[in-house]
């Protein structure tokens, strides 16, 4: 079986269990992003795949080979670290060729591979420079170059963009996605930034407290979050959760609470029917609010706007809905002033319902 397989992997430090039991199949060539808050075990998982941490139990298979107890260098992996982890005493070319030189590859091959990688990353003019003479973005590229020359089966990334400024980060995101296309290698990427996850991943693995919450494409996890944790973690600004109740009224199922009464969309009718009369949690994504109704699915909601943040194409509203704090992101035209209290509309076809007790999606 190709790709990377984690089977019942667990990790404990003494009495502290970081990862109780984790299983995941990653396909060959896939770009998988582990995302979650700090301490959720995503980095530990990556380090176990790399062989930098030993598993407490379970099995790790890379490209059909059981590597559970193999040394990092026997796993056919390359890794990019958050701090770049360049060798400060070596120049760019030496940094990139270190692994090949240790492997005693022919000199011509080493030079050729470094040349290709440097070309790809636009590092050719800097090959003789030491890391301290490079900018953050260039160091980041050298760290990537170091893994590219390896031509490893799996590329591991441990929050590689966290130390870059916002603009560079978004450029590097694009470059990484391009790199994945060019190299066509399996890539496993760890981040706490859901935007990085959403923009780059083929599949996202959302983790919390050492447990996988959901695995799916960016579309899946955005549109069909399995629980309130995933729902609030993915999407920016975060989804607002408010307590609500399901009720039937003239044959139409409604979800209602303080300051709102919204029709339940068709896609949720079957499951919601079974929960009628029970306490539920309603999930409203800020971006599904609008200043005017654009279709029949839009239902009016009165909002008291506390603060309107001007973003440009839209405004983020910190508002009060029947005593509940909610966030709305409303698209506005170029002439709009800061939005104020009044009637807004919500696209009810995009609302989410969760069980109040378990937090699971209905």
């Amino acid at each position, binding site marked *: 079986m190709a790709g990377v397989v984690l089977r019942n992997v667990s990790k404990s430090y003494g009495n502290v269990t970081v990862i109780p039991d984790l299983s995941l199949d990653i396909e060959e060539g896939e770009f998988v992003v582990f995302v979650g808050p700090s301490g959720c075990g995503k980095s530990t998982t990556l380090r176990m795949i*790399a*062989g*930098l941490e030993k598993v407490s139990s379970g099995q790790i298979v890379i490209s059909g080979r059981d590597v559970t107890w193999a*040394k*990092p*260098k026997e796993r056919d*992996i*390359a*890794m990019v*670290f*958050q*701090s*770049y*982890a*360049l*060798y*400060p*005493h070596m120049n760019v070319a030496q940094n990139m060729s*270190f*692994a090949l030189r*240790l*492997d005693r590859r022919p000199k011509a091959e080493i030079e050729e591979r470094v040349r290709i990688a440097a070309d790809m990353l636009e590092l050719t003019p800097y090959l003789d420079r*030491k*890391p*301290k003479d490079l900018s953050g973005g260039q160091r980041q590229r050298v760290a990537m170059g*170091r893994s590219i020359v*390896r031509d490893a089966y799996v590329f591991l990334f441990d929050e590689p963009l966290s130390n870059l400024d916002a603009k560079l980060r978004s450029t590097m995101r694009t470059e990484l996605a391009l790199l994945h296309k060019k190299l066509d290698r399996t890539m496993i990427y760890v981040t706490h930034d859901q935007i990085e996850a959403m923009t780059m991943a083929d599949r996202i693995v959302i983790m919390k407290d050492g447990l996988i919450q959901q695995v799916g494409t960016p579309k899946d996890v955005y549109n069909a979050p399995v629980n309130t944790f995933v729902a609030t973690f993915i999407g920016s600004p975060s989804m607002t959760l408010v307590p609500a109740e399901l009720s039937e009224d003239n044959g139409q199922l409604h979800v209602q609470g303080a300051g709102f009464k919204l029709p339940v969309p068709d896609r949720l009718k079957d499951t919601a029917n079974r929960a009628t009369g029970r306490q539920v949690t309603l999930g409203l994504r800020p971006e599904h609010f609008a200043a005017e109704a654009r279709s029949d699915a839009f239902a009016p909601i009165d909002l008291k706007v506390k603060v309107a943040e001007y973003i440009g194409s839209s405004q983020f509203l910190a508002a009060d809905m029947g005593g509940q704090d909610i966030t709305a992101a409303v698209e506005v035209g170029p002439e709009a002033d800061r939005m104020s209290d009044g009637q807004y509309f919500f696209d009810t076809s995009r609302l989410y319902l969760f069980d109040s007790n378990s937090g699971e999606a209905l």
Partner: protein
Amino acid sequence: MAHADMDTQRLDLPEPMPQPRFQAGFITPYAFIFPALLVMLGGLLYPVFMAMYLSLYDWQIGLDLEDAPFVGLTNFSRMLTDPQVWEVLWVTMRFGFWTITIEMTLGVALALLLEKPIRGASVFRTIFILPLMVSPVVVGLIWRYLFDARVGWINYYLGAWFGIEPQIWLGDAQLAFFAIVFTDIWQWTPFIFIIVIAGLQALPSEVVEASTIDGANWWQQVFLVKLPMIKSILVIALLMRLIDVFRGMEVMLIMTGGGPGRSTELLSLHIYNRAFETQQLGYASAISVLLIVIVFAISTLILTMANPMKSRSDV
């Protein structure tokens, strides 16, 4: 401009704030280092220049300096042809070579072995640095008794455990040289150890991990990654030991007094003997100047070859 006036310059300005009369300027940093400079000049440069001044006179103890005859560079020309000076220089160089080579190797090796947080490592570390806390005079006394031919533990245990005949350690030229080298290693290896282990523990762990991923084994990690990364620390440690070799004399003074013959007489001990045993203060000062020149030359050489201030780079 009309637009800018409207949006950014709407307010009338108040009276400008007066510029403070005193501002940190050109003088300030020098004012702050002045006291330290004074101490440096008084404590460091004065004796150096005094030594240079004295080296131009034939000054004997008991004679007033005013009465000492000015001899120009005679002391220096005498020094260059003095076989005793060349002999102690040779002893000093041999001593420095053996002690520093072994101390650096041993100190680095121990630091590498005890770098990992293993059980009891901190106890070992504390034990290792104990010799550093002992004053050189006490070290000299301790080892003089340990090496003592009749009542020393060393002869006793060599005999009891290995059946080796008692040796007159401090009475034989070669054995005495070995004894002072051994004592120096005992006292100063911990110094290298403590500096190197601090350097190793400050290394960013991700860089070491990166080398593991790159396929480096333990030896390659040590020689291609870790030691090059603490090169500046190694250079400074080496420099301090080298300077100490030319400075230190208490241990030899007490253990052997430089003997037998001049087999354990280091340069600084020789200067001491010249000054206070043979009472030739002017000549001793001339040799001191030689010592200063040697130490200065070595320091400059090492610092230019491997500039520890420059080679330290952020990762």
